[in-house]
């Protein structure tokens, strides 16, 4: 008898359990197939939708793959010069203290050119949320080595792998900002499995709740894949990320006040 239930019956009689959130626009994402940016965008917008703060949220988009985030997020957005998103967010939050302000940055933006802005915004304890997508590479410009590139990891500017003697060690921004007194919640998450997506979403929710309570800066790193830059299929890149990125960038809460 069960076999007679068709998809139409389930849609008609059943409940809708998952639908794309209304806080995302209908535009097709410009990201490569399987890129973690899409999931990060979605869970961020789901949190904003669930908290009912769509009209009170201002996002700051960076330079990098997510430079077009304002095209996909159905909220007020501001573009920032390369790496300066935390400085721009600081200004917005100080002018509009009752709005929710977040920045959405990649590792080339936040950990390379924007290191100073990031560290000082964290040190001042600006009441904003920073979402940091770490894929260990400059994705948009063609897979060059970023400060977060792993030792011996190949990129277009390190074809024989990153030589730490010459190029230094990968920078752990999340651990660095956790030592600063201005941050209240510092965590590292991922979006490659359903469980990881749920944990990341909870972390983002917590960050926005912290902002509501004026607790200080919340910093969320999301370790993501860059299958185009890494020259792998999406499934293989997620596996590679688990095997190589996670030992160096361990997941979990680093600071939670």
């Amino acid at each position: 008898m069960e076999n007679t239930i068709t998809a139409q019956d389930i849609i008609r009689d059943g409940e809708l359990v998952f639908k794309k959130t209304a806080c995302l626009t209908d535009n097709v994402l410009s990201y490569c197939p399987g890129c973690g940016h899409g999931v990060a965008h979605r869970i961020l917008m789901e949190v904003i939708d669930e908290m009912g703060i769509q009209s009170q949220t201002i996002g700051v988009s960076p330079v990098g793959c997510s430079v077009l985030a304002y095209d996909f997020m159905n909220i007020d957005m501001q573009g920032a010069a390369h790496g300066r998103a935390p400085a721009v967010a600081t200004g917005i939050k100080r002018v509009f203290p009752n709005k929710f302000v977040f920045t959405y940055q990649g590792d080339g933006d936040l950990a390379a050119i924007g290191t100073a802005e990031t560290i000082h915004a964290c040190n001042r304890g600006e009441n904003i949320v920073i979402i940091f997508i770490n894929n260990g590479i400059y994705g948009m410009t063609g897979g060059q080595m970023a400060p977060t590139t792993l030792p011996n990891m190949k990129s277009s500017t390190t074809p024989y792998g990153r030589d730490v003697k010459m190029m230094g060690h990968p920078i752990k921004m999340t651990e660095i900002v956790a030592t600063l007194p201005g941050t209240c919640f510092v965590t590292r998450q991922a979006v490659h499995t359903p469980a990881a997506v749920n944990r990341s979403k909870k972390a983002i929710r917590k960050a926005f709740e912290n902002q509501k309570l004026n607790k200080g800066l919340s910093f969320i790193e999301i370790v993501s894949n860059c299958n185009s830059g890494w020259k792998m299929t999406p499934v293989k890149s997620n596996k590679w990320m688990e095997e190589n990125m996670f030992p160096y960038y361990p997941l979990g809460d680093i600071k939670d006040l």
Partner: protein
Amino acid sequence: MAKIKGTILVDIDKCKGCELCVVACPSNVIKLASDVNGKGYHFAYMEIPDACTGCVNCALVCPDSVITVHRLRPKSVQTV
């Protein structure tokens, strides 16, 4: 025993065929089609619709949010 039944709707035109939903599905319901969509991607579809439980795993990992999930609980549970 009646089990929970689910079904997914895939926005074929926006699917980029990244295969993450195929890996995430615990019931191996989803496969990539041999056909391609307007952009040339092999889109995801339900190969074994009867096995779908509406667990939402595929929709959670879909980067392009193209999957909508419906779920039907068994009659015995549904009635008040």
